Structure formats: C-alpha cells, structure tokens
C-alpha cells in the first residue's frame, strides 16, 4: 500500500523532471562545457581552458554591456519601487473609482513589452521632439534615442512604465495585509502621514519591498525586449545589454563558446546580486 503510494508520487514528478533536465539543466551544462572551448557554433572545436573567461574581462564591448546593464538595472529598480509604492499607497487610500483606477494602472502588465517598446520609440523619436520644439524646450527637442549619452534614459522610462504595474500590485497585496487598527493607533498617538509611513506602513510591507527589489533587479538585469524594441542596442553599442550581446554575437557572430563564457559570468553575477540583496534586505527587515 505504502509502496504503491510512493510509486504513484514518483510517477507524478519523473516526466516533469526529465523534461526539465533535458531542456533546462542540460542546456546550462552544455553552455558551461562549451565555455571552455573555442566552438563557433558549427564545425570542430578544441579545449581552450579559461581563455574565454580572461578575454571577456578584457573585452571593451562586453565590459560596456555590463556597465550599461548595471546602470540601467539599478536606476530602473529604484525608480520603479518608489513609484510603485506611491501608486499603491494612493490606490489603498480611501479614494473614488478605486477599481477602475487599479485596473488602469495594471494595463502595462498585460501588453507585449516588444510592441510597447516600438510605440515608445515613436514617442521618443517623433512625438517628444515635436512637443519640445513647439514649446521651445531644448532638452527634449531632439531624439534622445539618437544620442549615445541619453538613449539609456529612454529605456529606463519605458522599463519603469511597464514594470510599475506588477510592482504596484505586489505592494497593494502587501498593504492589504496591514490591519487598519494599526493606523488608528498611530493616528491616536498623533503620528503625521510621513511618520506613519516610515514607522508603521513601511516596516510592515518590508517583506514585499525585499521581493520587489530582488525581482525587479533580476528582470532588469536580463533586459532584452525593451532594448531590441527601442534602440537595438544603439547608437553604436551604447545601450547594448548583456542579453542582447550574447544573442547577437553568440548566434550571429560565431562566438558560441566565447558568449557562453560571458553567459556563465552573467549567471554568477545575477546569483551573487540576488543573494546579496536578500541578505541585506532581510537584515533590514529583522531590525
């Protein structure tokens, strides 16, 4: 009886395990394996040891991709969390049209990131410069996506517009867990809105803050669709993210092995950052 039951449970997980191993773990292992070779994606190959890894660290294009991705991810993560928390606080207040407003703020989440990026590209290249020059505002009268120093701002704006929807919802879920009596107690104690937020609300939604920071950062570090849609990595390679670099050079540029090494480094970077964030933020929570 017990054995039969155990066998049944085993059969429930084995097919999924095989599928997962074949199409997730096995490709990861292949990637790691080829990162120690000179494989171009076709033809013969030889082992080259750690050569690819050393080369990535001296590759200005790879380093600039890391630089851009970090800059973009950090700024977008911070902005998206600040904006989301404010929208969530607003939606959680005693407002009119709550359901409609909530539904409206959530719209970006259901849309294809790539298509939204194409729409934003048109806004940045045509609509904003039009408005800028007719109002005489110098700063937006030219296409920011065409400027290597400013193009990243366009990507941040799009990414925040898109990601705020989901983060707002997470914060709303967090705010819903707070007992109203806590607020009443705070107001009886004479706390103002600012104090209430920092001393009462924020500590109580801290676990959601942790999750939001980690998830947002991880997603932004993997940015791909936004960049393909907005700039294609340009002008030049000024907005090339790590994902995009691995895609273009790894599949089209005959750098299968070299970009695999880059992907392994990228993987390690993401794990280290996520673990670091969890540690630091959870310590904050504990305080």
């Amino acid at each position: 009886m017990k054995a039969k039951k155990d066998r049944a449970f085993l059969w429930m997980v084995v097919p999924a395990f095989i599928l997962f191993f074949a199409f997730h773990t096995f490709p990861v292992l292949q990637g790691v394996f080829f990162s120690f070779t000179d494989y171009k994606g076709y033809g013969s190959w030889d082992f080259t040891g750690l050569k690819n890894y050393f080369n990535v660290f001296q590759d200005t294009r790879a380093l600039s991709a890391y630089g851009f991705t970090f800059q973009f991810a950090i700024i977008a993560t911070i902005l998206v969390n600040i904006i989301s928390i404010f929208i969530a606080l607003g939606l959680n207040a005693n407002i009119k049209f709550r359901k409609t407003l909530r539904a409206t703020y959530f719209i970006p989440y259901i849309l294809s990131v790539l298509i939204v990026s194409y729409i934003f590209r048109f806004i940045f290249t045509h609509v904003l410069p039009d408005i800028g020059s007719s109002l005489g505002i110098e700063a937006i009268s030219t296409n920011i996506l065409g400027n290597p120093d400013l193009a990243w701002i366009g990507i941040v704006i799009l990414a925040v517009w898109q990601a705020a929807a989901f983060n707002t919802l997470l914060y709303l879920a967090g705010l819903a867990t707070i007992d109203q009596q806590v607020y009443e107690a705070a107001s009886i104690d004479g706390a103002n809105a600012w104090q209430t937020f920092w001393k009462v609300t924020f500590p109580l939604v801290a676990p959601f803050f942790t999750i939001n920071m980690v998830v947002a950062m991880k997603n932004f570090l993997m940015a791909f669709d936004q960049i393909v849609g907005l700039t294609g990595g340009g002008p030049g390679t000024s907005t090339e993210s790590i994902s995009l670099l691995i895609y273009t050079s790894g599949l089209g540029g005959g750098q299968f092995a070299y970009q695999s090494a880059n992907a392994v480094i990228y993987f390690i970077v993401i794990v280290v950052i996520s673990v670091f964030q969890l540690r630091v933020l959870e310590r904050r929570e504990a305080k």
Partner: protein
Amino acid sequence: MSGLKINWKITTLLILGTLFILFPLYLTIVIAFKTPEEMGGNLLALPESWSFDNFLTAIEVTNFYQSFFNSLIVTVASVVMAILIHSLVAYAIARNIHKKFYKFLYIYFISAMFVPFPIIMLPIVKQTSFLGMDNLLGLAFLTIVMHLALNVFIYVGYVKTIPIALEEAATIDGASTWTTFWKIIFPLMTPMHATVGILTALAAWNDFMLPLIVLSDESQYTLPLVQYAFQGQFSTNYNLAFASYLLAILPMIIVYIFAQKWIIGGVMRGSVK
C-alpha cells in the same frame, strides 16, 4: 475605512497619473487610423476620418490571422500543460517535502528562477532544431519548462494549505493516489489554476525572446515576432505599423476589459503566496 470621507486629493492625483498610462495607447489608436499624409500635421490630433484601411492592409501584409492563430495555439497549449503537469508535480512535492529526494527536487526546480535565459539560449537553439522542435509545439514545451519554477512554487504553497485529512479519508475508502489527486485535490486547486493559467497565458502570449530563437519557419511566427520581422517594412509607413501593433495588442486588451477583476485577483493571489 469605509466610514471615512473620500480623499479627493489622492483621487485627483491618481486620475492625472493614468494619463501617463493611457497616452501611449491613445497615440497608438490615433496613428493607426491616420493616413501618411496626415502625419505632417499635429501627431496627437484625432484622424480626419476613421477609416479601417490601415487595418485591412496590416492584416493582409502581416498575415495577421495566421500569427494570431499561432499565438493562440502556443498560449492554449502552454496553459493546459502548465495546469496539468505543474499541479501534479507540486502535489507530489508538497506531500513528500519531508523526504530528501523531494526536498532536493523542489530546491532544484526553484533555483531555475535565478538562471538567466542567455546561458540556455545558445545550446537550446541547436537542441531544438536537432530534435525537430523548432515549431509551435516545441515552443509550448519550452514555455512550460521555463515557467516550471514559478508555477510549482505557487502550487506548492497552496497545496500545503489543503488539509491532508481529506486524502487520508479517500485512501481508507480505497481510492488510489492518482484518483485522489484528480478527484479531490485537483478541483480544490482551482484558485491556483486560475493564477497559474493567467500568468502562463500572459507570458506565452507576449513572449518574444523564446519564439525569436526557437521558431524557424515564418508561417509559424507569433504576434510579437511578426512585429519584429516587419520592422523594415514598417519604418516607411508608421500608420501601417501602428495598425499592426494595435491589432497585435487588441486581443489581450479585450480579454482584459472583460476579465480584469479576475486577472488582477489571480496575479495578486500568486504574489501573496
């Protein structure tokens, strides 16, 4: 808080904020209806006539019905497989989590959430074409593999809240583990089926990267991939491009208008877990 009076200041601020959300959508509609001649004037003005010509051209040029159908196949296949397979896996894991093997399996699956896709990307292209999986069905399989971690995580959290007594009673009545799952547990997991279904459907429908690297035959392109493939042609005709974008996002917007409460509720339930 229902007894308190309405906070109009915050209401007004939030309404103003929605302008940022709605502006790109407004622009998309306006441009999609205009003619190329009207593009010289004020871009934000309403079109002179509401003609559907751009849409008819876009449907023809991009083979819209075909790509809509392709997106639908991948989405439906992914959702059905995710609900059947992931719930089963999560049930077995949740009920045996005290055993080393299942505990290991759980951590093994969940850790996939931190594996960036690019490390899989290059090998998976070779693997899918080698196995003849560079088609819609292969794409659906890969979609559920990529979403296994999150979905199993959501399901396991929920199964833990289902009292085990129900299953013990069923076992005493002579029901097998499989019967118990399909007859008792699977129906009880309905709220999470909704959550997993919604998350998987949105991900599969809007996905770009996986179709981009997996699909090789143009007739199998999904809606986002078609927009990408037609960029060259679109750059000379924005009105055609925006008509095509609008057509591509419209199905999801229509679904959202009718099911927004359900969709938001589903996503929110997944996030509290």
